[in-house]
């Protein structure tokens, strides 16, 4: 019945299944939703989408499908990646009333969507201002932060001129969709996967199985057995790159750091600059006075610690390869030697890199560091964090 919708959702990458589709049909048959399109939209949403992050994508597909634009090109249009910086642009034009009056609508919703599709195909560059292309701050019907009475909004958090067309076109869930943006809370969720429980400490819980076994053993005389409570047993050693090229990533790193703090019982953190050498430090404000010899760190923590580096790994290749290559001081041994020592001491290691993954190929030192880590470098996004945690918990 609504197979086009299902197909569209599948193509847009939503995890929909036959079970849910059948549930929707069943619900429609029982007449739960009445007979208005809006009710059907709500019903379809409740039965097909199970994660608020997918609500926005659902809205878009629904809007497309029910405007008769089932063609593949349209669906690809939805998925077409619109670079964020196009839309972030804050060039906001304010229009006077006369101007608003002068702006003509393009005529009809269907025509609008049709034109949008064409424009998406034609347009390849960022655009701002103007009155035809999709962009920001202009008078074209497509784009954001501009004015056109029949506008289709692309990448704008809320309707500035309060002219949203349909419920699903309001795109109220857009801010839940993004996987790029990570906050402390998200990081915590990802890190939680790393938790491993072990029984250690004082015996405070009743061990049911042990008690029954032991009681039977004693010929029916009750013999209570206790076991220690389960605790989080994962130990983490965190090395944060500080200063230099990392400055722009400081916020992300601070978030990661604060998330780590609450998530693990054993968490030790150290700072380094660009690459690890013979000294690291615990407090970034006193980096020049209170250095800890790296050898001491290597000897202190046993091999069951999980090693996490956070850094952009963007530096001159000499800082990794050459003795004496470090930017801040003279290092008798090369960064590579030190990295190898780290990885030998703690076999469970990952490197989290706040630089977007698509830029990695342009920096030689990132490639070198990645090779040193045998590919265990992950972008500092939620997906990357998940993959990294997966690697660590092997």
């Amino acid at each position: 019945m609504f197979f086009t919708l299902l197909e569209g959702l599948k193509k847009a990458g939503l995890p929909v299944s036959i079970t849910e589709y059948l549930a929707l049909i069943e619900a429609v048959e029982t007449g739960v939703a009445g007979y208005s399109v809006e009710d059907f939209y709500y019903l379809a949403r409740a039965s097909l989408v199970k994660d608020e992050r997918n609500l926005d994508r659902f809205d878009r597909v629904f809007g497309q499908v029910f405007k008769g634009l089932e063609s593949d090109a349209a669906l690809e249009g939805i998925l077409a990646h619109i670079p964020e910086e196009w839309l972030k642009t804050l060039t906001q034009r304010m229009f006077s009333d006369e101007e608003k009056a002068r702006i003509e609508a393009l005529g009809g919703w269907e025509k609008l969507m049709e034109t949008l599709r064409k424009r998406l195909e034609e347009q390849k560059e960022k655009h701002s201002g103007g009155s035809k292309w999709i962009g920001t701050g202009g008078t074209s019907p497509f784009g954001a932060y501009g004015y056109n009475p029949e506008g289709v909004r692309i990448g704008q958090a809320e309707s500035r001129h309060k002219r949203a067309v349909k419920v699903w076109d309001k795109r109220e869930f857009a801010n839940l969709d993004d996987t790029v943006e990570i906050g402390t809370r998200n990081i915590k969720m990802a890190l939680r996967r790393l938790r491993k429980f072990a029984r250690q400490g004082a015996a405070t819980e009743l061990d049911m199985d042990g008690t029954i076994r032991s009681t039977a053993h004693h010929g029916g005389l009750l013999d209570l057995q206790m076991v220690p409570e389960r605790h989080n047993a994962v130990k983490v050693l965190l090395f944060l790159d500080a200063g230099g090229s990392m400055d722009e990533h400081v916020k992300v790193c601070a978030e990661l750091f604060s998330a780590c703090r609450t998530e693990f019982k054993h968490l030790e953190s150290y700072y380094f600059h660009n690459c690890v050498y013979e000294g690291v430090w615990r407090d970034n404000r006193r980096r020049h006075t209170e250095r800890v010899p790296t050898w001491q760190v290597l000897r202190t923590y046993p091999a069951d610690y999980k090693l996490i580096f956070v850094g952009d790994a963007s530096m001159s290749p000499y800082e990794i390869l050459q003795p004496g290559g470090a930017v801040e001081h003279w290092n008798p041994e090369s960064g590579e030697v030190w990295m190898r020592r780290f990885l030998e001491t703690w076999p469970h290691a990952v490197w989290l890199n706040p630089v977007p993954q698509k830029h990695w190929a342009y920096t030689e030192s990132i490639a070198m560091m990645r090779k040193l880590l045998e590919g265990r470098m992950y972008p500092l996004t939620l997906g990357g964090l998940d993959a990294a945690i997966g690697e660590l918990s092997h």
Partner: protein
Amino acid sequence: MRFSGTENYVATEDLMVAVNAAVTLERPLLVKGEPGTGKTVLAHEIAAALKLPLLTWHVKSTTKAQHGLYEYDAVSRLRDSQLGDAKVKDIANYIKPGKLWQAFAAESRQLLLIDEIDKADIEFPNDLLLELDRMEFFVFETGETIKAQHRPIIIITSNNEKELPGAFLRRCFFHYIRFPERETMERIVAVHFPGVKKNLVREALNVFFEIREVPGLKKRPSTSELLDWIKLLMADDIPPEALKAKDVKTAVPPLYGALLKNEQDVHMLERLAFLARREGR
């Protein structure tokens, strides 16, 4: 049976559709949303609106799926056996029915709230798949099968602390309670405080939405905090004029303790107010 909100609860249209679908098709409804948007209250209100008895199962980090079915109290049986109690002979005396059992065995249709399912172990929802699907389970100790006489309506709330497994999600309807818009919020306030002054609400909502917009707040105030705050404002008889945020001297709203639950947030607001004062000079 149709749910259309109650006199104490403002239900948006999409929420009504989701609830009615779950009620009609007898499938669980999974409700998510920001803390304080009324997820748990929803179950109470549905129970009240449809006149169904409500069973609540609060899930904690230590809760196991088995707890919802039944528990076998081996310790008291052992103790009784040593005292020579006649009860010992029958194992059924030591089976304690859980919430799901109670819901299944009840004479009439029940509404079961499984509250904060994400608090439990990650495998918890998977362990309940069959029970929620078929609405029956097997008791090993006594060899009986408990089957639902009337399929209960099940409302499940989640705070998103853990991802729920796909197999579990496929069996549920889903609703995400969005943070209410201003209009909805006005209705919610009106429902809770019928006698409140119109301009007090207006000013309070202005302040409230302004605070929510402040970037970098650790915990943004939600509906329940707003209701608490308005209650306090009414109790202290604060005049609406005092809430005008543009007022230079009272830029930090009165009784803000009800809105902000975190000292960093309070500090930040005070600093912003200070900056606003300096600019105003």
